[in-house]
């Protein structure tokens, strides 16, 4: 970004630096607000359909354009031209605000996503906290949509969404705290800089928690209860149609991408890779490619998960969040903090090894605890069965 600013000022000597910066900001904001949504939605709906089709041994979209590549654009045009219906009894203002809030809230997160060396909207020093904080708009949008639709299923769904979001926000925050602890900063740039060894390898537990929580936050299968068609029709946006529905849809895919992008930044070293640097245009492009590859890989993982696991029940979902991820996260947090203060782990390599060991210990301990609890509840259940038979 700074490079572009200085390039602009050198190109137009009369231009003041703030103006140049403003122009760059405006352009980048426009890219994030208009280009990114279209690209993300089109590309990843296509990818998702293809991947899921592969997993389910189908072909997927193949009519619109070569290999069905234009399917996404066709859908976009369809959405724009659909009739927009507002149900009677809806609270019109709130009803119309909700989809906008959903999509704007998601786009705001992109402001701190470093997509390539030096390319980041605002490298805030509270970067990751900003991400978590802005995430609150998603909840608000869901509640607003659910409430204003004047539909009890929509409202029920909104409740479920919020319950789910809050159940997984906490583990996610704990995972983030672990990253911040290891990196010593909340700033995205510094977090990337700190990953000489990607945190995936030093903090696997944090990555696991973050990954699961991200899937749940986005509301994808197997955590897609909020739109479990068979139970609550189609989620809090059941009454929405046309472009308003499209906005929710865009928001969802933007969220998917940014979730994976954050995962990349926090745990896979972001844009880092051989040859990526801020110094040359080639380096920047290379960094962008690395970022994209890693992010797409994470998205592929999520699609894989979607194709593999069945949807889980709401009580299991909440239990998994509150009674497994949160305690494990807290345990791992304490373990990592302990390791970082151990006096004999003096070099950074030793610290990485120590964190890894701590994580493995946490995994072992928590798995043992879970299996113990499971065995106990099973034996209780068995005893119950035996009791009824007698």
């Amino acid at each position, binding site marked *: 970004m700074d490079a572009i600013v200085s390039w602009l000022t050198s190109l137009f000597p009369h231009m003041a630096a703030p103006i140049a910066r403003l122009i760059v900001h405006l352009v980048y904001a426009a890219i994030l607000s208009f280009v990114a949504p279209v690209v993300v939605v089109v590309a990843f709906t296509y990818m998702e359909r293809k991947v899921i089709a592969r997993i389910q041994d189908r072909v997927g979209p193949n009519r619109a354009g070569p290999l069905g590549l234009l399917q996404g654009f066709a859908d976009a045009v369809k959405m724009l031209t659909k009739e927009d219906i507002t149900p009677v009894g809806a609270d019109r203002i*709130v009803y119309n605000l909700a989809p906008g809030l959903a999509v704007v809230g998601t786009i705001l997160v992109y402001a701190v996503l470093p997509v390539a060396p030096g390319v980041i909207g605002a490298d805030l020093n509270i970067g990751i*906290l*900003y991400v*978590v904080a*802005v995430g609150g708009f998603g909840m608000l949008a869901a*509640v607003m949509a659910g*409430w204003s639709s004047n539909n009890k299923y929509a409202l029920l769904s909104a409740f479920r969404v919020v319950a789910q979001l809050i159940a997984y926000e906490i583990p996610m925050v704990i995972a983030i705290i672990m990253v911040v602890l290891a990196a010593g*900063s*909340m700033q995205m740039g510094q977090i990337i800089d700190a990953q000489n060894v990607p945190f995936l390898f030093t903090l696997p537990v944090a990555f696991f928690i973050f990954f699961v929580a991200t899937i749940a936050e986005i509301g994808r299968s197997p955590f897609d209860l909020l739109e479990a068609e068979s139970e609550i029709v189609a989620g809090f946006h059941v009454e929405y149609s046309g472009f308003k529905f499209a906005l929710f849809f865009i928001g969802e895919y933007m969220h998917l991408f940014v979730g994976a992008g954050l995962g990349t930044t926090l745990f896979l070293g972001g844009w880092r890779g051989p040859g990526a640097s801020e110094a040359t245009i080639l380096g920047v492009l290379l960094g962008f490619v690395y970022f994209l590859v890693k992010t797409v890989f994470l998205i592929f993982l999520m699609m894989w998960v979607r194709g593999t696991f069945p949807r889980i029940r709401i009580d299991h979902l909440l239990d998994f969040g509150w009674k497994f991820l949160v305690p494990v996260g807290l345990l791992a947090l304490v373990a990592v903090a302990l390791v970082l203060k151990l006096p004999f782990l003096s070099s950074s390599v030793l610290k990485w090894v120590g964190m890894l060991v701590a994580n493995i210990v946490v995994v072992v301990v928590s798995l043992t605890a879970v299996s113990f609890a499971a065995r106990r509840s099973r034996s209780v259940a068995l005893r119950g069965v035996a009791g009824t038979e007698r």
Partner: protein
Amino acid sequence: MPVDQIVKTVVFVIFTVMTLGGGLGVVVSPRIFHSALFLVLSFAGVVGYYVLLDAGFLAAVQLLIYIGAIAILILFAIMLSRGLMAERQSQSNQQWWIAALVALLIFVVLAAVLWRVDWPVASQQALASPSNAISQEGSQLGRDLLGPYVIPFEVASVLLLVALIGAVILARETES
């Protein structure tokens, strides 16, 4: 006036409209659900204030706690105690006009006092470089919280524990 000063003033006015307009919406809106949404608007204005005051961390905290948590809590409570929200009846009690008068008078008095006081504003130099809660170099806030404020820091966790216990006891549906 330099450009950035004008921009700041405009931004300040926008946030003030959000904050006070939202606040007014909270207290006069006939539907409690709208009140809650206005409350969010007001909180968002305060977020803007914190940004203008160079308290970025607090802005994020305000967003996280007030909009992300407290507003949600309030919305939940509204939905759990439905009944009132659908009706478009008056949301004010009989003493509202005295209340309005008193609030207005208090505002006048406060404003007069605040206006008169000659605040001991710090030097230009100090104003230009405020301390930063979270900065490039690390967290002054973290050092303070675990330094001179360590007792309040721990007490806060106890407070939260107590609040949680109390609220769970109160809100739990009676076992039957």
